[in-house]
C-alpha cells in the first residue's frame, strides 16, 4: 500500500512516499507565498518521479504549520492532518525504535517530544514566540556575518575560543553579533557563539520535559554540523541524527497514513 506524508513547514515542504513501510520517494522545495501551490507542485513532481498517480496513493496525511493548505485541497487532497509533534514521534520511532526523546529544530520552531510506547507522545514542549531557538535564527545571524547559511556550522567548528552570547532574542542577538564583529571577534568564534546560544535555548527548553535516552535530533538544523556538539554538551547526552533528518516529520505522517490515520 502506498501512502504519503506531506510536511508543509515554515520554509520547506517535504514529502515522503511510502510503500509498505519502505520509502520510495522524497522531495523537498522552498515554500512560496502561495503555500498550497508550492506543496501541490512538489507533490505532483514527487509522484511523477516515482511513476505514480494520485489515485495510486491510498492515503495522504499532512503535517507542519501549513498543513491546512493541502487538507482536502487538490492536487494533494490530504485526507487527514496531524500535528508536527505526533508526526515527529511516529517518524522517529520508525527509524529509531529505542528513541525516548526527540528534538526537532526546524525553520520556525524548536520542539522537544517525549516518546512513549509504540511511538506515542508522552509529553512535549515547543518554543514560544521567539525565533532564538529555531533555524531562522541561524539564517538571520548568517546574514549579519555575511556568510552562507550552509557554511555557518563548519565555520563554528573552526572556532578557537568560547564567546558568551547573552541575548535570548533574535533581534537583540543580531545587535550582539554586530557588536562582536566591531570588536574584531573572528567569524568562526561568533559562529560558535551563535550555535552555543541556540543549543542553550533548545537545551533548556527540552530539559523542561526531561531528557531520556535515546535522544534523536531531527529537522533542518540537524544538518548543521555546528549545532550538534554544543547541544550534546548542553544535554550531557549522546544524540542520534538519522539519515535525512529533515524528512522525519513527513515520514511520520506517511506512517500514520499507512496505519489508517490519526
Amino acid at each position, binding site marked *: 500500500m502506498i501512502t504519503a506524508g506531506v510536511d508543509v513547514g515554515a520554509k520547506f515542504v517535504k514529502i515522503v512516499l511510502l510503500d509498505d513501510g519502505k520509502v520510495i520517494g522524497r522531495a523537498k522545495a522552498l515554500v512560496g507565498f502561495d503555500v498550497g501551490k508550492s506543496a501541490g507542485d512538489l507533490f505532483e513532481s514527487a509522484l511523477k518521479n516515482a511513476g505514480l498517480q494520485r489515485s495510486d496513493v491510498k492515503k495522504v496525511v499532512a503535517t507542519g504549520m501549513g498543513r491546512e493548505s493541502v487538507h482536502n485541497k487538490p492536487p494533494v487532497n490530504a485526507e487527514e492532518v496531524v*500535528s*508536527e*509533534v505526533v508526526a515527529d514521534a511516529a517518524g522517529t520511532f520508525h527509524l529509531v525504535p529505542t528513541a525516548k526523546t526527540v528534538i526537532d529544530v526546524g525553520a520556525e520552531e524548536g520542539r522537544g517530544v517525549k516518546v512513549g510506547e509504540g511511538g506515542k507522545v508522552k509529553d512535549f514542549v515547543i518554543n514560544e514566540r521567539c525565533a532564538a531557538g529555531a533555524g531562522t535564527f541561524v539564517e538571520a545571524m548568517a546574514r549579519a556575518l555575511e556568510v552562507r547559511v550552509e557554511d555557518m556550522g563548519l565555520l563554528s567548528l573552526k572556532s578557537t575560543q568560547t564567546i558568551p552570547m547573552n541575548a535570548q532574542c533574535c533581534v537583540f542577538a543580531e545587535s550582539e553579533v554586530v557588536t562582536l564583529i566591531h570588536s574584531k571577534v573572528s567569524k568562526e568564534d561568533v559562529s560558535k557563539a551563535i550555535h552555543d546560544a541556540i543549543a542553550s535555548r533548545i537545551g533548556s527548553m527540552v530539559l523542561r520535559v526531561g531528557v531520556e535516552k535515546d535522544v534523536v535530533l531531527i529537522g533542518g538544523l540537524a544538518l548543521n554540523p555546528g549545532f550538534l556538539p554544543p547541544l550534546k554538551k548542553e544535554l550531557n547526552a549522546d544524540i542520534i541524527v538519522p539519515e535525512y533528518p529533515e524528512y522525519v516529520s513527513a515520514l511520520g505522517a506517511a506512517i500514520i497514513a499507512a496505519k489508517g490515520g490519526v
Partner: protein
Amino acid sequence: MSKQIKEYPTEPLKCWNEAKTLRKNYYEDYLNAHNRGGVRWAGGAWTFSAIPAGLGNDVYFITGEPHGATIAFYKDFASKCHDATEAAGFPRTLCAYMRNYWGAILLDKFILADGSVVDGYPAPDFIWQDHICCSHGKWYQVVKWLEKKKGREVPMYCVDVSVGYSLDPSKPLEEYKSNYLIQQLNDGIDWLEKVTGRKYDDKLLCEAVWNEMKSTSLWAEICALNQAVPAPLDEKTMYSLYVMGTLMKHRPECVAFYERLKEETKDRVKRGIAAVPYERFRVITDTQPPWGFLNIFREMEKYGVVSLGSLYTFGLIGMWEYKPDGTWIAKPLPPKKPKTREEALRVIVEWTLNKPEWAHFYRPELKTRMMKSIVDQWKANAVLLHYNRGCEGLSVHIAENRLGLLEAGIQVFPFEGNMGDEREFDMAGTLGRLTAFFESMGLKKLVE
C-alpha cells in the same frame, strides 16, 4: 462527525441576560454615582469590600482587576491604554490589569461593560485597597499620584494582609493573624468616617458581611455542581458569572443572582444539560485567561474538550471547606449572622483568610495540592497552565505547580500569554500547540 461520539443536549443559560444587566448597571452606577449624591470608591477585587458598605446604600465602587480585564477584552481600547502607560514611563513588564487601569486614567476615558468608552475618567472619592501582592500595593499609590496630577486629591487606605493564609488548612487560623487585620479594619472604619464625613452604620456592615459570605459560599456550590458529567457549565461562561463576585460580592443583588444561578445549574445537572455537546475530555485551567482571546475555549470545544474551571475560577471568589480526605465542599455559613461591628469584622476576616487563592502566595505546594484535588474531584483529564506574563501574583510558582502535577501523573499543557496585554499572546501558535496536545491525548477535531 464520528457517529460514536455521544451528543449531550445543550441549552442557553436562562439567567445570562440578568448577568449582563448586572454588569452593565455596575459600571454605570459607578460612573453616575455623584449625579445621585452618592459616594464612589476604588480598590481591588480582593479588598474587604463589605467594610465601606457601612457608609450607606448609595456607595458605589469599582474593583480594579475586573476593570483591567474588561479593558483587555476590548483590544483596541487596551492597545491605547498600553501606549499611554508606556508613554508615561511605565514598563510593559508590570501587571497588565494595572497598566490597563492606569492607561484609562491617563487617557481620561472610562470603558463600560459593553465596550463603549466615555470621556472623563470618574475619579473615586477614596481608595480602599489591600496588599495581596506587590502590584496591588503599588497600584493605587500610582492612581492617587495620577489623579493628583489632574488636581484631584484622592485619600487612600490600604490594609496589610501579609500575615496571609493559614499554612496548615486543616488547623484553625492563628488568632494573631485575624487580630492584626481586625485592628486595621477598625482603624479603617474611623478613617472612612473621617474622609467621607459620613456616620458609619454597623447594621449595614453586618448585612454586607453576611451577603459576602452567602455569595462566596453560593459560588462554591455552583462550581461544585460542575463535577457532574456532562458539566453543566463551561469556564468561558463561568467567567461571565463569577465576575459578579469580583465586582460586588457583598451586595444583595449578587446573592440573589447566585441563588438563581445555583437553582438553574442544579436543574441542568438533573436534566443532563451540557455546556459542551460532545464532552469527552475534561480540563481545568489556571490563573486568568488571555481575556482578549477567549474564543480559544470555543476552539477547544471542537475537540470535545470542556474546561470545567480552575483554582482561580473556583477559589478567587468561592469559599471552600477542605475535608480531611482532601475533598472540597462549599464552606457552610456560620450558625448565626453577625450583629455587632466586632463580630462582623472577625467573621469576615476569618472567612477571607481561608480563601484558596491566597494559598500560593505563601506556599506553592498548597496550590499544587489544591489543583490535584480539583482534578480528582471534578474528574478532569488534564490541566492547562497559563504562564501569564501579565500577573506576578497569580503566576508565581506556576512552573513548580506544573512539576508537582506531572509527578502526580496528571497531563499538563503549559502555554505562554498575558491576561491583559494582547501583544503577548500568540493565538495561532497557541492553538497549534493545543492541537498537538489534544492529538497526543488521542483527540481529533469533531467539528470545523
